[in-house]
């Protein structure tokens, strides 16, 4: 028989009180975990969005009037010479490598060979646009390099059929296909040429949904724009590539083009989200502290009710330290139960309410959150027990017997 066994027996005997106290801790922990889980999921979603758009660079002709082309803001009657692309690639890659060096990073992200510094080259996907008609509707006809485009627009998914492969094939955006009642395999006329519909894209919530796509040379030839591109989408092939430096280098070093990225906007959105999330966590921590005070009251009451037991144990030879250990073990058990229970409730709330609060959020099971839940519950339970235990342990036996 040792002190841990006595603590276990005492907790076992007071099942309802243990559960009642643990449930107070569990509710506070559940609140904390559900907030962190949903918020963390949202933050991750936002980070992915930043990574998606933040590492994407668009290079346009410097004089582009963004209100042209049916208000899509995707080009105009100005073009970038196709043979300028290798130079743009060179400027871009150099800026990325220098950007990494400026961060003292080891430049061997992928494809590291021997002792040679190597960064995976970015994908440059050029497009040329033309305004035309399809089945009597005004449309934007885009010439693309399909494989490069598919890499650069990594959110593209083919809904039916496949990507265009041949010069007599086209691919349609989802909304355009629906609006014109066009299906894979149909033959359609554009600017006097007949094309077979090879594929239809899934909806992307972007101007691509309203466009028709053919290979770059096809559109260039059909609209007399050989050697010209309307814009170039650049996708960096590393997660944290310093595209800001590349953007700056292109804008400062290449005449006639303008590079833009959405990283700044996305970063600002992330900062706002982070501030809101921090505020919410602050409120949750306040709620946690209030719950701890309630637990403190419960434990205070519980130990007061057991004061004669404290007197008995002292008469039997228990020292202050041994009694304190006994109460702390009990508190730890209550904390452990409360922490695990709170984690399960918190994750349950996150699964139920997360999709309502943030529809696109993916709720994940994180082991770190289990540790956080148990740690917070243990800390709260032990802290709440400290003072009542100190008071109970310091009562002299005769005072303890007289107390009730």
């Amino acid at each position, binding site marked *: 028989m040792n002190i841990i066994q006595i603590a276990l027996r*005492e907790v076992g005997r007071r099942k309802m009180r243990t559960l009642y106290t643990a449930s107070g801790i569990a509710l506070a922990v559940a609140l904390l975990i559900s907030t962190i889980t949903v918020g963390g999921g949202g933050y991750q979603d936002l980070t992915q969005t930043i990574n998606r758009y933040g590492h994407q660079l668009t290079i346009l002709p410097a004089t582009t009037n963004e209100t042209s082309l049916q208000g899509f803001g995707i080009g105009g009657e100005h073009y970038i010479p196709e043979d300028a692309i290798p130079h743009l690639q060179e400027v871009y890659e150099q800026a990325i490598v220098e950007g990494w060096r400026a961060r003292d990073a080891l430049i061997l992200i992928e494809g590291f060979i021997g002792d040679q510094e190597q960064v995976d080259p970015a994908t440059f996907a050029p497009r040329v646009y033309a305004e035309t008609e399809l089945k009597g509707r005004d449309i934007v006809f885009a010439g693309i390099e399909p494989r490069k485009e598919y890499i650069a627009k990594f959110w593209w998914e083919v809904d039916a059929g496949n990507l265009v492969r041949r010069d007599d094939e086209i691919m349609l955006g989802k909304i355009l296909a629906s609006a014109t009642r066009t299906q894979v395999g149909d033959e359609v006329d554009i600017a006097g040429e007949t094309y077979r519909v090879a594929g239809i894209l899934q909806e992307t919530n972007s101007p691509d949904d309203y466009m028709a796509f053919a290979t770059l040379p096809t559109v260039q030839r059909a609209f007399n724009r050989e050697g010209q591109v309307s814009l170039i989408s650049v996708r960096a092939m590393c997660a944290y590539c310093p595209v800001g430096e590349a953007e700056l280098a292109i804008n400062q070093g290449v005449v006639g083009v303008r590079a833009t990225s959405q990283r700044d906007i996305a970063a600002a959105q992330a900062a706002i989200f982070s501030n809101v999330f921090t505020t919410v966590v602050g409120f949750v921590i306040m709620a946690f502290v209030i719950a701890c005070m309630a637990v403190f009251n419960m434990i205070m009451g519980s130990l007061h009710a057991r004061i004669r037991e404290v007197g008995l144990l002292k008469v039997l030879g228990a020292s202050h330290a041994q009694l304190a250990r006994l109460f702390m073990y009990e508190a730890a058990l209550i904390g452990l139960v409360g922490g695990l229970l709170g984690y399960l409730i918190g994750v349950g709330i996150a699964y139920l309410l997360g999709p309502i609060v943030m529809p696109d959020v993916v709720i994940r099971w994180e082991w770190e959150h289990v540790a956080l839940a148990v740690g917070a519950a243990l800390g709260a339970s032990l802290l709440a027990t400290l003072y009542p235990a100190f008071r109970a342990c310091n009562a002299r036996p005769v005072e303890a017997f007289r107390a009730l």
Partner: protein
Amino acid sequence: MDPIVQLKGVSKVYKAGEEQVAALDDVDLDIGRNEYVAIMGPSGSGKSTLLNLMGGIDRPTSGEVWLADQRIDQLSERQLLEVRRRRVSYVFQDARLMPSLNAIENVMLPRAFSAGRADARTAALQCLERVGLEKRAKHMVHELSGGEAQRVSIARTLMKEPDLILADEPTGNLDRKSRMEIVYLFEELNTMGNTIVLVTHDQEIGERTRRCIRIDDGRPLQEAA
């Protein structure tokens, strides 16, 4: 007489708000080794206070309390802890067993707080044998009768092998049959060399002890041997 307990000019005053109540007033008392002593008197006469001072669980307002050759009224809490662990044992009116533990675990309880945990179970079983409850060793407290619970609490005092057993109205809550079982047990323990001081209201028990001290208004009145 070889005294195991000596009280020299002991007074105990309690404060009740502005008022002071003298529970004991200048008491001189010696208890010899192997004695079996009853302390009797009306409620509030100071019997339990006297017992608490002998056991070191309370301190006198003035005077000296000696346990064998050690003055205990001036000891620190830590030193008193050692006295309670090894030299003095208590039997209370209501047995005061831990309801979460079974009979043998209650008997082992003093060893949970001191050295010698290794053979505690064997020793506890022997103590239960001495009070005739070895077959009830694994029974929970709520499964024991009042008399059995009190016998378990006596077995618990024996675990310490104390110099002195103090019993505060140990038969107060029991029926006659159980009361006499406890009385016979105390007599047997005294015969085996244990020093016992018990507080009681029961005239019959008082008369069966070897020495009966009557107390009133905080002062011993007379002794009947």
